[in-house]
């Protein structure tokens, strides 16, 4: 006799199996193959399956790859922070102050994505360049004597455009968290004498931090994966760990080493995210939020 639990289990299986199979077949399996390759050795254009850890040793001992992985993490974290700060007020506005045009405002945020990465990147060059819109404006108002060269082809420029690129994702994540917020809590806070700011500081912000965190993780991962923006906007130091891997896959045909760097990168990424998630869940706020569900 099938128990109720069996029925539930069957339902869960029916819902979950397609996605699991799909991800298993086209993500896990390919990455496993890459993992296998990472222990191979390259002999000209042949990958020789003489399994050893040399590639991992290269990654760990190479200052370049260590630096690049570190830089990826740093830039990911910085952009996640910037987008969070920029996105929050907008998400708050859309969630709390807009009634009729919510969908329109959110969609409007996504429309620029349609232009395509490259088109937008080159548009930014026109904005930030030495003879670009921003510099022309700054010269015109007399804020500067010389065009500010660092507006383009610098780490800062790259971070700016990355922030721009991933802002919509952060807005969406925070907006969802704000929409999930029980509105009566705001009334309760007001009732308890909290002003707007204090309601925000002590009620809204803590309760939507999980949304910020989700957004931050998304942006973090996206920034690490983006190599076009740093390459085309970041100037001579615009190299990223991904473009280094790219070079190893393509130019140097060293898939084993590329695979090893990729796996180290993913391991660092997963460890960081797991640590962050654990920390968040263990925190007083995290525990309190978990308990309410």
């Amino acid at each position, binding site marked *: 006799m099938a128990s109720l639990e069996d029925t539930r289990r069957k339902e869960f299986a029916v819902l979950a199996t397609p996605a699991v199979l799909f991800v298993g077949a086209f993500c896990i399996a390919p990455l496993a193959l890459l993992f296998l390759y990472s222990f191979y050795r*390259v002999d*000209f*254009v*042949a990958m020789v399956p003489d399994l050893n850890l040399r590639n991992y040793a290269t990654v760990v001992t*190479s*200052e*370049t790859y260590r*630096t*690049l992985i570190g*830089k990826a993490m740093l830039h990911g974290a910085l952009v996640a922070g910037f987008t969070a700060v920029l996105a929050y007020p907008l998400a708050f506005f859309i969630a709390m102050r807009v009634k009729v045009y919510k969908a329109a405002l959110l969609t409007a945020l996504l429309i620029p994505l349609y232009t395509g990465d490259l088109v937008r990147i*080159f548009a930014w*060059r*026109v904005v930030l*360049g*030495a*003879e*670009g819109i921003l510099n022309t404006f700054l010269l015109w108002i007399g804020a500067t004597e010389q065009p500010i*060269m660092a507006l*383009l*082809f610098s780490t800062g420029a790259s971070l700016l455009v990355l922030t721009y690129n991933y802002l919509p994702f952060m807005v969406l994540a925070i907006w969802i968290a704000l929409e999930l917020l029980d509105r009566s809590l705001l009334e309760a806070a007001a009732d308890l004498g909290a002003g707007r700011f204090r309601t925000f500081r002590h009620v809204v912000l803590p309760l939507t931090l999980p949304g910020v965190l989700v957004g931050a993780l998304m942006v973090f991962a996206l920034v690490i994966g983006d190599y076009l923006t740093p*390459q*085309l906007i*970041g*100037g*001579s*130091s*615009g*190299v990223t760990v991904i473009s*280094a891997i*790219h*070079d*190893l*896959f*393509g*130019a*140097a*045909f*060293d898939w084993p*080493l590329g695979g090893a760097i990729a796996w180290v990168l993913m391991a660092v990424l997963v460890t960081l995210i797991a640590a962050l998630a654990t920390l968040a869940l263990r925190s007083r706020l995290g525990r309190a939020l978990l308990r309410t569900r």
Partner: protein
Amino acid sequence: MADFGTSLDRRRFLKLCAAASAVTALPLATRPAQAKASAVYWLTWENLAKAEYLAPYLAAGGVPITKGFIGSDDEQFAKLRAGGGSEWDLITPGIDKAELYIASNLLQPLDLSKIPNAAHLYAPFKTSPLGKKDGKTYNIPFYWGINPIVYRADLMDKEPDWSTLFEGEKYKGRLAMRDYALEGIVISALYVGIPRDKLFKMGAKELAECKKALLAQKKLLRTYWNSIGDLTNLFASGEVVCAFSWVPPYYDLKARGLNMGMAKPKQGVIGWCDSLAIPAQSKPEGVEAAHALINYLLGPEYGKLLAVGGPYAQSTDIARSSLTDEQQERIFVKDLGVMDSFVWKENPANYGDWVRLWNEVKAS
């Protein structure tokens, strides 16, 4: 009158006979071939497959071409190496990479008897070992050129050479190099004075020398450019005044009224050549069509169109005579002797080390 009539009749008759034999001969001639392909799939660079370049081929009844576009030479190799090449009948790799493709068994040998225009290859290409293995030809040179220095003549006081790109303090922050290990390192080698015959055979010591130069150079650069469109934009927007370049920005920007200059430094200029090759898994009817297309691409119509439009030189001299001196000059075929002075790109055996070095420089 009658004679005239008879002779007319005879001529008519002969004509008819010729036509009839032609009609009967046509199927005979094509019988050995497979069913004609409905399309030939060509993976290429966008600027080589412009509709107007291919129009004569199609007008002459060539198999319709479906084009795919390459991101970069390295991406092309990675993509084919990862997933074979069964989608394509014809690919366009750099000939310096040919041995990688051949060693990876990605290509099938070409049947030169189906490419009569190959007989007109320029001598250096005919004798070059690149793209050949065990007496078979896998990659046939397609078109070639040099990568010079292009600069804004209005913003520079004298013609630059490689040293400008390494020590031109005056232009600090307005110089650019291509983001490409092979060329970047060869140029540094030319600059530090590595002998020509050792350029692609550098050991650790020479590479270390290059790295030092490249590290110093990096401080002077505005950026490493990524694509020629990218660099053209950098010149046009005044970001960069002088860069290791390809030829097109010089002509493009000159045509738009900018005072551009092109320098071919005496230390040596990198010459390159892209090839045509047929992937190993291409189907027989595709192979057939690909050979026909190759022959067209090495032929006179295409050669002229490319020389005028590109401007690039194809690998055969078949169209050369139809070009004006000026057009010949533009594609460096006026004085064929210069071809010997170019540093032709090769694939270094230790290229992995080169790429790692290049990344070290960029990441420093």
